[in-house]
């Protein structure tokens, strides 16, 4: 695409969106749990910034509200809740190195390429900008999914889950200039409830296996109880 033809605001958005993607990579490779939570908070803040820019360029009032909602929820409230749980569970110094960080990163790169390939059918000329952002947000979703696969620690998995939600939000905001307000509120409510439930589960898992390494949750399998 010819960058000179893209309006200034959209250029800023593209830069911010690619930073969101970069943060997904950092989130995956981040060894220290607390630092990973902070990284996640930055991702939320970036998405809120993107929402604000869309709000400025489109002039929709409800998008300002949506930006505020994202910022409160994704950059402040959820990181704060996770932080509190980490302290309660005494995991402040928890480190979890990936088993094969290089392979994981290569898969993530492949996922980005795959995302671009997947949105190729959206070829209409006027959509060229949206295509980029849709591809990036899809990549963020898929990398979030990858984080949940490669990470064994329950809290790190939740971070992956939440960054998937971030990717979805990015898609909704940039490709369609935000979903109707009522839907956004509903989604935000679901995310918040999910977070509360995750918090309950951390304690339940800890109680049951005395660790948060979900790989050790392996009582149920197809050939059990023979």
């Amino acid at each position, binding site marked *: 695409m010819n960058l000179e033809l893209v309006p200034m605001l959209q250029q800023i958005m593209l830069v911010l969106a690619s930073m969101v993607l970069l943060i997904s990579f950092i989130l995956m490779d981040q060894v220290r749990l607390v630092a990973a939570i902070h990284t996640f908070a930055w991702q939320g803040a970036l998405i809120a910034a993107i929402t604000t820019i869309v709000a400025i360029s489109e002039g929709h009032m409800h998008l300002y509200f949506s930006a505020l909602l994202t910022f409160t929820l994704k950059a402040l409230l959820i990181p704060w809740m996770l932080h509190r749980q980490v302290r309660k569970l005494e995991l402040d110094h928890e480190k979890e190195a990936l088993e094969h960080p290089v392979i994981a990163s290569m898969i993530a790169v492949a996922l980005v390429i795959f995302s671009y390939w*997947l*949105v190729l*059918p*959206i*070829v*209409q000329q006027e959509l060229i900008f*949206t295509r980029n952002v*849709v591809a990036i947000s*899809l990549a963020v*979703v898929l990398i*979030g*999914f990858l984080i*949940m696969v490669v990470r064994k620690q*329950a809290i790190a*998995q939740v971070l992956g*889950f939440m960054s*998937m*939600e971030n*990717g*979805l939000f990015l*898609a*909704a905001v940039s*490709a*369609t200039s935000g*979903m*109707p307000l*009522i*839907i956004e509120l*509903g*989604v935000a*409510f*679901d995310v918040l*409830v*999910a977070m509360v*439930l*995750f918090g*309950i*589960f951390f304690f*339940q*898992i800890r*109680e*049951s*296996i005395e660790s948060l390494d*979900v790989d050790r*949750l*392996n*009582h*149920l399998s*197809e*050939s*059990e*109880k*023979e």
Partner: protein
Amino acid sequence: MNELLITVFTPMAATLILATVRQLKWAGWLNLLASTAAFVASLFLAFRVAKTGPLTAMTFRVDDFNVYLIVLTAFVGMTSAIFSRPYMQYVCETGKINKKGMQLYHSMYQAFMFTMLLALSTDNLGVLWVAVEGATLATVLLVSLYRTAEAIEAAWKYFILCGVGIALALFGTVLVYFAAQHTVADGTAGMTWSVLYTGASKLHPSIMILAFVFLLIGYGTKVGLVPMHQWLPDAHSEGPTPMSAVLSGLLLNVALYAIVRFKMLVDGSLTLSSKPHMAGYLMMGFGLLSFLVAGLFLHRQRDIKRMFSYSSIEHMGLMTFAFGLGGPLATFGALLHMLVHSLTKSAIFVTVGHAAHIAGTQSIDHIRGLIRTQPAVGWALLFGVAAIAGFPPFGIFTSEFLLLTATMESQPWFTLPLLMGLAIAFAGLFRNLHPMVYGTAPKEQQPVQANMIPITVHLLLVLWLGLSIPGFLAVWLNRATELIAGASLL
């Protein structure tokens, strides 16, 4: 309109009330009362829709397709509540859960009913998503209710897998909204199903098919389609039995309902493109795979609830296949199958709850001689399994027969794997069933207080549907078929 509001919002009010009720005795009755109220209101709603046609108001839309699912959902919710009241009291007496757990259980039971009814009656694709995700949130704590290591593991798996799945579904929904923005004049209406449906031919076909892939995988996770089915047997086997009954009987249906709604949109947008049946082929592929794989897995199960949850996957696969096949006959068969499968499967889970209570375990190897210990439960299990395996004269035979006929008409080669799958599943069910029902009972095995009303009612209904489908229901299903497949059967 009032009927609709009562149907949908009674469970919501009950959720809030039950969250505060401390007396266990009252909670069970209140739960039943709320479910009954919702069911009665849904009947009035059905009459209204039958008389005056589709009802659209606010963000709701009730047409011939979803009204029968609303009635079915409210009905199974009610009968499961009848079973759940004494059963959960027994569970509470065994000390598996405490009073707080019971309070949570009753409140979340109604919350689940609320999300199901909301998902069915809404016209807004975003609200549909929020409701289906809400159903996960409402049931996840119930799966881990017994707090055993297995239950917590099952709940975590359920939460994570369905969370991921449903996130993909949201991405698909966003893509649909994106496609709509370029055609629908009023942007905010781009999430309204009925608006999208009338303008479906203008939606960008390649975006719609991409969206459908995400939606099929996303909602398909909830339907339990292979390979996204991993959560389903775990959640069913570890959660409380009334929960298994409503999960199998209702949640899977609602997720499939969502997929069919989206398929209608995608079909509309693809009519003029080079591959008009793309969505249908995708559904047929996933459906057939689930059907065959689940049939094979049936043989390996040692836990009775796990076994029947695989049977649910198998039947959901068959329905997905049938909806994918399209055409009036297959669609009619699939709609009927949804109905009879829900009724039969929830009856089976209720029976299994009693059987596990009698034997004191869920392990198939240790449940023996049910007919000798308690004939009612033994026979109910035998009849239930006969019905689910597709024996005549039960309703599932009728719907499976219709589906096979439809397959033979349009895709004759698929009849072969279908018949094979049915035979495999049949063998898998009966080899496990036989010793459980007949075998010699352990000496100390005692009959339990079983509530046979819901089981009897469900099985009789399934029998009735197998012998003769009542005229009004046939007309009803036919109108839904007309809506989905575009042509009427009768």
